[in-house]
């Protein structure tokens, strides 16, 4: 397999000869600004316009424009390195924690500029919860894990009730009600991840960001988390990053497909948004050839 086949193919990853041959005829990707915003979304919880993130001098993801619907599940899919996690981390300003990260463009949360001068990133994260790739419970008891957020926020009311309600919403209450004082590290991986979801729910967030929440879990635990997401979307808007297309198809209402490109100097990999729309359409009638190839399993 010669490398020059790939230089115009734009998809930067290891591919088989057959795939490389297919891609040779693929169009060079040119994503015009605002192309992929889904205008059908009313009352969006997030709107991004030409959102770009770079680490140091190298851009990681360029010109993402989309509208995330309220009380729906939006899935970000695409191959590794396509910037889907980077984008989701703009929604709660998690990228602030990486000193070299620079965010350009606009992110609006209910119409409010999330990166405005008057916005405190700590306040943002109180409204927008996050669940991470690997379960990351604190080395504390189950109870204290849940109580952490409410305590930090100084929430009023009975802590016991807050904890019970959060665990019930994450359908974990029956599993753990008799061992709330046990260390969370004694739970199974799936339970730990549901604990992390419960922990995020305890502060009553408006949005739940999930960054590949099932990548470290077995299929049964994954199924339980997906069921849980269906229940939760009654009350919160969910954005989920996943590299599992079936998961996106199963759980999400809308899907955004990202790819990773070489930049012109062929040194940096840049993520781009290719297509965004209702999940049914993305999976059955994709407009872009690269989306079609990805969702039909030709690469990724």
């Amino acid at each position: 397999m010669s490398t020059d086949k790939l230089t115009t193919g734009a998809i930067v990853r290891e591919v088989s000869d057959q795939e490389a041959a297919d891609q040779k005829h693929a169009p060079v990707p040119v994503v015009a600004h605002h192309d992929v915003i889904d205008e059908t979304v009313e009352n969006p919880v997030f709107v991004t316009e030409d959102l770009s993130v770079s680490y140091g001098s190298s851009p990681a993801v360029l010109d993402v424009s989309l509208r995330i619907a309220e009380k729906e599940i939006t899935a970000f899919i695409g191959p590794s390195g396509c910037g889907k996690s980077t984008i989701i981390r703009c929604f709660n300003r998690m990228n602030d924690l990486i000193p070299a990260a620079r965010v350009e463009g606009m992110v609006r949360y209910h119409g409010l500029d999330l990166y405005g001068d008057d916005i405190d990133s700590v306040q943002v994260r109180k409204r927008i919860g996050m669940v991470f790739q690997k379960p990351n419970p604190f080395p504390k008891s189950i109870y204290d894990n849940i109580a952490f957020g409410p305590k930090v926020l100084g929430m009023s009311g009975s802590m016991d009730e807050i904890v019970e309600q959060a665990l019930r919403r994450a359908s974990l209450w029956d599993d753990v009600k008799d061992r709330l004082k046990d260390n969370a590290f004694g739970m199974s991986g799936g339970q730990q991840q549901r604990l992390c979801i419960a922990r995020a729910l305890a502060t009553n967030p408006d949005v739940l960001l999930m960054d590949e929440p099932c990548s470290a879990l077995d299929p049964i635990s994954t199924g339980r988390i997906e069921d849980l997401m269906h229940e939760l979307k009654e009350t919160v808007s969910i954005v989920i990053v996943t590299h599992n297309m079936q998961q996106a198809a199963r759980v999400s209402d809308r899907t955004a497909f990202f790819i990773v490109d070489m930049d012109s100097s062929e040194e940096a990999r840049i993520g781009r948004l290719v297509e965004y729309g209702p999940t049914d359409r993305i999976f059955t009638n994709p407009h872009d050839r690269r989306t079609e190839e990805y969702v039909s399993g030709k690469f990724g």
Partner: protein
Amino acid sequence: MATDATTSGAGGPNAESVFGPPRRRIGEKLIAAALFCAAATSVIITIGIVVSLTGETLTFFADKAVSVSGFLTGGQWTPLFSDPEFGIRPLVQGTLIITGIALLVAIPLGIGTAAFLSEYASPRVRKTVKPTLELLAGVPTVVFGYFALTFFTPTVLNSILGLDVSVFNGLAGGLIVGVLIVPTIASVAEDAMSAVPQSLREGAYGLGASRRQVSVRVVVPAALSGITAGIVLGASRAVGETMVVLIAAGQVPTTSLDPRNPMETMTAFIGATGKGDVPTGSTGYKAIFAVGFALFVITLVLNTISIRFVRRYRQVYE
């Protein structure tokens, strides 16, 4: 044993026909032996120290002028008098007071430094401050001792703070020993805090915690076993520190609790007496070993407690 027939029974292949003739690895064995000797050295030396300490201590207690109960409970330490008293309490008390003062200084400074370096400092600041801190740990303690005696006591304690302390006093000794062990505590605690997985911090930040809340409620508790190990290591150094207390704290074994007065620690007694004119084999000479043995026991107890504590609270992360 029917199954054996298929794997290693007669008629099956033997190891040599599959893997070739066995190679002798003499070099490998030599290296293993040399490394074992290196590892064994410290164990052997420790055993040697314990044996010699124990032997001399036993002959000390065999002396007619000495009784075990008088040694442990007596409030007078005058081993070189013509009518000697061997009550170790003043020395233990001096050691504990000076260690206590040192820890009062070093625990907040050390953990504060560690938290700053691990949670607040930019990578560039960390790259500058941490080596500087470790440089401080390399300053000879005799330098600290004279700093305490000739600058800290007269200028800081007397002139600036107006504390009216003696030329030799436990306060200066304790405070400067505290400064001395800050790098130990800070360095070990910083390592422990830096080892807390980033995912835990992200989890807390994701819940709307501020930097201070993340540090205090997540990082410090998660690093508690390492921080404790650092404190105990620092305490052991303070207990064993000789030069600073010998120079700055004086050599007056006293039961006074006032740190403005001169006091003598166990190590200072050993240092002062060992370099002096005590005839080898005299009871005063043997007292050095008895005090050394007591010091050894104290540090051993301290380390054992800390190991238990560290094991109990250690969190294992993937």
